[in-house]
C-alpha cells in the first residue's frame, strides 16, 4: 500500500505554517561542487600512460638484472660424511669436522660476504615463526608462553633463549683458508657488524647483571644447543648472549624455505685488501647442523655486492614482467580502440 504508517507520522501535530523553507542548501558539499581532480581519460592519455609505464619498468628491470648478473658468487655444497653422522640424533655430541676444497677462477673484488644457505628449511612455518619471546630477547624476565613448546624443561628450568627459532639456531662453524704458494693462510673473517643496527641495539638486549653468566643464572640452554647462550662468543663481550650477531641473524626468519643468511664478512687486510684473489681455498667446517632428516641441504656461499644488492634477480624480473604487461595492455587497448572506432554507431543520425 501507499500508506506507510508509523505513530510518529500518523499523529504528529501539523507543523507550524510559518516554517523555514525546506529548500536544500546551495552549498558546495550538498550540491556536489567540491573541488576535485578528476582526470579526463582520453585514448591519448590512457595509452601514453600505459606505454610510458611499460618503458620505464622494462628499462629499470633490465638494469637490475644486468647488475645482479655482475655479482660474483660461488656456492659450495657441504660434506656428506658428516651429514650421515648427524642423521642420527644420538650422535649429537660427536664432533665432526670436514673440509671442502674449491677454486676461485677469478678474483672476487670488493667486499666479499660469506653466507650459509639452507634448502627445504621451513622457517616460515606458522608454528615456528610465532615460537619466540621478544620480551625475553630484550632481557626482561617475563612469561614465555609464546615460546611453546620450547619454554621450560620438565624440572621447571626456563630456557634462554626460548622458542623453536632459537632452539634450531644454525650452529656450524665455518673457516676459510687460502692456499697461497703451498702455504695455507686463514682468511680473516669479521663476525660482528653483520646484523642490523636496530636489531643489535634495540630489539635484542642482554639481561642486566654484573656479568653475563650470572645474568643467565637459573636458565638453561635450549635442548638442541651445545653451549649456553652466554658462551656464544667468549672473546667479545659485545657479541655475546642475546646480542650475538649470528643469533640475531638467525632470529630474523626467512620468508621462504630456501634462504641464505649472512655468516661472515671477509676482512680486507693484507692479501685480501681487494677481496678474494683467484686461487684454491678450503672451507673447514665443524658440521653440527643436521639437514638430511628433513631432506634439506646446506651451502656455503661467497658473494660480492653491487649497487642493487646481492645476486637476487627477483626485483629485476618483477620490473620486467610489469613493464611487459603494461606495454601489452597498451597494445590491446590500441587494438580495441581502433576496432571500436570503426564500429561505433552514434546515437545521433
Amino acid at each position, binding site marked *: *500500500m501507499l500508506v506507510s504508517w508509523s505513530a510518529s507520522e500518523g499523529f504528529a501535530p501539523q507543523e507550524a505554517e510559518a516554517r523555514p523553507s525546506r529548500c536544500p542548501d546551495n552549498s558546495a558539499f550538498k550540491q556536489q561542487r567540491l573541488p576535485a581532480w578528476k582526470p579526463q581519460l582520453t585514448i591519448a592519455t590512457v595509452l601514453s600512460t600505459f606505454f610510458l609505464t611499460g618503458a620505464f619498468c622494462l628499462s629499470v628491470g633490465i638494469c637490475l638484472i644486468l647488475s645482479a648478473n655482475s655479482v660474483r658468487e660461488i656456492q659450495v655444497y657441504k660434506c656428506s660424511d658428516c651429514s650421515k653422522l648427524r642423521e642420527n640424533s644420538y650422535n649429537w655430541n660427536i664432533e665432526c669436522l670436514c673440509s671442502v676444497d674449491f677454486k676461485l677462477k677469478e678474483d672476487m673484488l670488493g667486499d666479499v660476504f660469506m653466507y650459509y644457505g639452507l634448502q627445504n628449511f621451513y622457517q616460515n612455518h606458522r608454528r*615456528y615463526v610465532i615460537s619466540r619471546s621478544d620480551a625475553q630477547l630484550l632481557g626482561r624476565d617475563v612469561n614465555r608462553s609464546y615460546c611453546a*613448546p620450547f619454554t621450560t624443561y620438565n624440572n621447571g628450568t626456563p630456557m634462554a633463549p626460548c622458542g623453536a627459532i632459537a*632452539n634450531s639456531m644454525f650452529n656450524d662453524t665455518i673457516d676459510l683458508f687460502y692456499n697461497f704458494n703451498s702455504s695455507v693462510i686463514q682468511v680473516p673473517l669479521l663476525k660482528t657488524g653483520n646484523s642490523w643496527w636496530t636489531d643489535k641495539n634495540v630489539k635484542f638486549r642482554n639481561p642486566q647483571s654484573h656479568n653475563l653468566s650470572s645474568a643467565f643464572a637459573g636458565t638453561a640452554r635450549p635442548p*638442541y644447543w651445545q653451549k649456553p647462550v652466554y658462551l656464544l662468543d667468549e672473546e667479545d663481550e659485545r657479541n655475546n648472549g642475546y646480542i650475538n650477531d649470528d643469533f640475531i641473524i638467525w632470529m630474523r626468519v626467512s620468508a621462504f624455505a630456501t634462504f641464505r643468511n649472512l655468516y661472515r664478512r671477509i676482512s680486507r687486510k693484507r692479501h685480501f685488501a681487494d677481496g678474494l684473489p683467484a686461487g684454491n681455498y678450503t672451507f673447514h667446517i665443524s658440521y653440527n647442523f643436521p639437514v638430511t632428516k628433513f*631432506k634439506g641441504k646446506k651451502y656455503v656461499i661467497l658473494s660480492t655486492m653491487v649497487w642493487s644488492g646481492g645476486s637476487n634477480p627477483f626485483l629485476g624480473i618483477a620490473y620486467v614482467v610489469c613493464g611487459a604487461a603494461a606495454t601489452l595492455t597498451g597494445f590491446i587497448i590500441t587494438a580495441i580502440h581502433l576496432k571500436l572506432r570503426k564500429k561505433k554507431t552514434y546515437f545521433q543520425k
Partner: protein
Amino acid sequence: MSSERDSETTFDEDSQPNDEVVPYSDDDTEDELDSRQPGVESEQTQTNRGTEESRETLRKDCSWQVKANDQHFHEQPQFKRTILLCFKKSKYAGNAIKTYKYNPITFLPLNLFEQFKRAANFYFLVLLILQAIPQISTLSWYTTLVPLLLVLGITAVKDLVDDIARHRMDNEVNNRTCEVIRDGRFKNTKWKDIKVGDIIRLKKNTFVPADILLLSSSEPNSLCYVETAELDGETNLKFKMALEVTDKYLQEESAMADFNGLIECEEPNNRLDKFTGTLFWRNMSYALDADKILLRGCKVRNTDFCHGVVIFAGADTKIMKNSGKTKFKRTKIDSLMNYMVYTIFLVLILLSAGLAIGHTYWEQQIGNSSWYLYDAEDYSPPYRGFLNFWGYIIVLNTMVPISLYVSVEVIRLGQSYFINWDLQMYYSEKDTAAKARTTTLNEQLGQIHYIFSDKTGTLTQNIMTFKKCCINGQRYGDCRDGAGQLPSHPEQVDFSWNMYADGKFLFYDHYLIEQIKSRKDPEIQKFFLLLAICHTVMVDVSDGQINYQAASPDEGALVTAARNFGYVFLSRTQNTITISEMGIEKTYDVLAILDFNSDRKRMSVIVRESNGNIRLYCKGADTVIYERLHPRNVKREATEEALDVFANETLRTLCLCYRDISDDEFEAWNKKFMEASVATTNRDEALDKVYEEIEKNLILLGATAIEDKLQDGVPETISKLSKADIKIWVLTGDKKETAENIGFSCELLTDETTICYGEDISALLQTRLENQRNRAGSSTHSSLRMNEPFFQGSRDRALIITGSWLNEILLEKKKKKKKLKLKFPRTAEEKQKQTEKRRKAEAYKEQQQKNFVDLACECKAVICCRVTPKQKAMVVELVKKYKKAITLAIGDGANDVNMIKSKAAVRLLSVGNISSGSSSTISSLFLFVEKTLPSVSLPTLTFLASLLPSMPALSLYEETLYEMLPTLELESVAKKGCRLSCQATTLLGNSATSRDCCWSTDDGPTLGCASF
C-alpha cells in the same frame, strides 16, 4: 447488456473486442494480485461448494460483531481465541498500539537474534567460535571479536534509540485523550482505554482514535468532514454521513448512552475504501458502508463534534493493518553482491580444502620429520591437515568481502542524502525537496529500461477546467459572439450577471450564454440542471462564499461550470438538494443516488421535481452511456461526432442524459434497491444489478468536455527519455482518441510515427503463434527461442492498445461461471484430461504474452488506454516477467496503487511522495523524473562500481570513462548487463558547473550531470 456480454465471452469465441468498453470490474484487484493463481481453479472450487456455503459465507463475511455500550458482550467465550494452549484472548484488540519491538528484558536476546539473522554477522560469529579453539586458532582472538562487537554495538545502540523513540511515541499516542461514554456520561478517557463498542465524541481538528462508525455530528444530517492525508495522501476534505436513523435519535448524550445497536461487519482488513456491515437496532437492520466509517488516522475538519461507536480498535484498525512489514526490496546489485559473496565463500572453502590437502601431503613428506618444528603434540598428518583447513578459513576470511554490504549501505545512504539535497529536484512552488524514501533502490534508477506512467496527474496536472460542451447535438465552447458568429478576437464571457460566479472561470462562447439567458431551449436548461444536481460534491460556505469540496476534480469542474452558467448548487441534505436556477432557488427531493465507481463509470441521481415528476439524471463515460440509451435518440450521431472532436482536442468527455420514471416503476425499483442496500453478501454486486435496472432507455442530453492541462516540461522530458532509449508506456483509462492526442501533444507520438492498433498486432501475433506452433512440433519449449522482429524497417513505431484488446490478446478474460460448473470433472480421467487441457492453455497463454511483450518492446512508445488499474498492474508485471528489465512506475497514487506496488522495482515517485498529498496541484513532477534519473544514478553506479571489482558495473565504469570523448555513447553499456538512463549526445567536458560531465541535447537544457 453489452458489458455482460463482454464478460461472458471466452477466448475460443471469436468476437471482436470493443474498443470503447472497459473490460471488466477489478474491484478486488488487491486480493487477486496477491494470489496470482489463475482464476480457473478457485472459481471452480467456489462454484462447487456453491450454494450450501452461501449461508456460511454470510456468517464468515460478517463475523465481526460489535455491540455498542456493552463490554460484556465482547467478553463472551465465542469471541475468544486460543493464543497459547489454554490461554485465551479476546479477538477484539484494545486501542493501545504497540509499535515497539523490545522491552528491557527482551532487548538483548531479541536484538542479538535479529542481528545474527544477517549473514554477515553470523559469518563473523562462526569465525569467532573457530578462533576460540586453540588447535585451530591462527589469529589472535580479538581480531574478529573487536570489529564484531563494534558492529553489533552500533547497531544495537541504533535499534535501542529507535525503539525508545517508538516507546515514547506509543506512550504519547496511547495517552491522548478523547471523550468516551462511561457510566452514561462522556468522560475524558485515554486512547489506550478505548474499547470496541465504546461511543466516543470527537472534536474539531482532532485525530480519530480508532475506526468508528459515525452516529451523529454537529452538522445537519450528521455530516462530518475528514481529512485523510495520513491515510492516502489526499488533502481534499472527504465527507462522511451518518445513517438517518442514528442522526435522528442519537444527538443527546443520554440517548447515546442507551444506544445498544449491534453491528455486524467484516473482519478487520486493510482495505481503506471498503466496508460492509449492518447495524441492527430496534429490530431494524441498516446497511453500513465505507461512507459511514471514520478511520483511525483521519482528522475531523469543519465539524464541531461528532459521535461514533468504535468498531475496530488498535491493531485491528485499517491503518494498522496497512502498516504491514515492508518487504526488503533487493536490487540487481544486491543479488549480484549476494551471488558474488556466496561464490567467494565457496571458493574460500575449496581453497582451504586444497590447502589443507596440500598441507597433509607436506606434513607427511617433510613436516613430520622436521625436527625444528617439534610441537610436543602427536598428531597424524591428516589430522593436522584437518585442523589446518579451519585455520585457513580463519586466515583467509578477509577474502569474503563481507564488509562490502556495509560499504554499499553507507554509499547508498550518502546517495539518498544527495538526492534529498539536490537543488535541481527542489520544487519551489510547494517548498518541497525530493525525498528518497528508501536507500536501497537509488542505483536501480539508473538502470531503468521501461517507464510506466499514468496520464492523469502525472503527465497532466489534474487541474480540470470545463472547456466545451455539446447540448442536443450542438457544440458550444469555441470562440463565438452572441449571434454565433466568429469574432475577430476572442473575448472573455462576462459572468457578472450571475451573483454566484466565482470569477475565475474563463469561457469564450458568448452564444451559449445568450442561449442560457434566453431560456428558450429546455435542453440547455436540463443540461445545466443536471450538472448542478448529479454529483456528490459538498458545499462549504465560508464568508458567504461558496466553496465546493469535490472528491474528483472532474466533478468539481462540472459543478463549478454549472454554477458560473447560473445553475448554482447551494446545499444538500440527506434527501434534498437545493440549487439556484438563474437566480430562483429550488429544492429537489433526492430519492436515490446511484453512486459512481470505476466499474460503472457513471453516476445517477433520481430526484422528484417540484411538479411531482420523478426523473433520473445520469452522467458517465460515453461508452457506458451509449449502451443504455433509448433506441430513438435523434441527436445520438451528432453528439458522438462532438465527442470525437473533443477527444481529438485531448479533452476528457462525459455524456449526460436523463430519463423520466413513472411512480409505479420507481416504487417497484425502490423496493429492490432497499433490499439490495442491506444485503449482507456481495452488496456491491447486488446494488450494481439494481442500478442497472433503472439506468436504461436514457435520453441523451449532451456531453461535456473538460481540459486537463499537461504538466510543465512533459514533451521535453519525454523526448529526452526516448533519446536515452527508455521505453515509455502510458497507461490510462481515457478514450483511445484522447490518449492518442495526449500522446501527440506530449510528443510521445510524432507525425513520423507509425501507429499500430490492437487489431493490427492481433493479426501479427496470431500468425506468429501459428508459426511457432507449426515449427515447434512436439516440443513446446524450443518455440520459446524465436526472436525475429515483428516489424521490418527502422521506422518509429507506437502501439496504441485498448484494454479490451489487451484482454483479447493476452487471453485474460473472465470465464463464465456457468460453464465451469458444467465442466466439473466426475472421474479421475476427466480430471486429468482437464488439467492437461488447462496446462496447454497456460502454455499457449504464456507464449502469447511473451510474443506481445516482444512486439510491444519493438515500439518506441506504448499507450494502453481504457485499461483498469488491474490491467495496469498486469502490464507492468508482464514486462518485468518477460523482459527482466527494471521498470519505473509513476503514478499519483489513487488508481495506480496496483501498478506501483505490483513488485515494480522502483516505485519512487508518486505525487503523494514528492509533496505529501495534493495530487491535484503539483506540476512539473514529470520534469523531476527526468532530472532524477541520470543525475542520481551515474554517481551511484560509479561509486558502487569502484567498490565492486569484477562486476558489470565496473566494466560500465571503465567503458564510460574510456569512451567519453568526444561523444559519450553509453548505449554500448547496455550489452554488459547494466544500462544507464541517459544517452548523452554532447559532452560539455569540464563544464562551468564544476561537475565534470554534463550531458545536454544540442540546444536544450542540461540533461543531467554526473561526477565521476
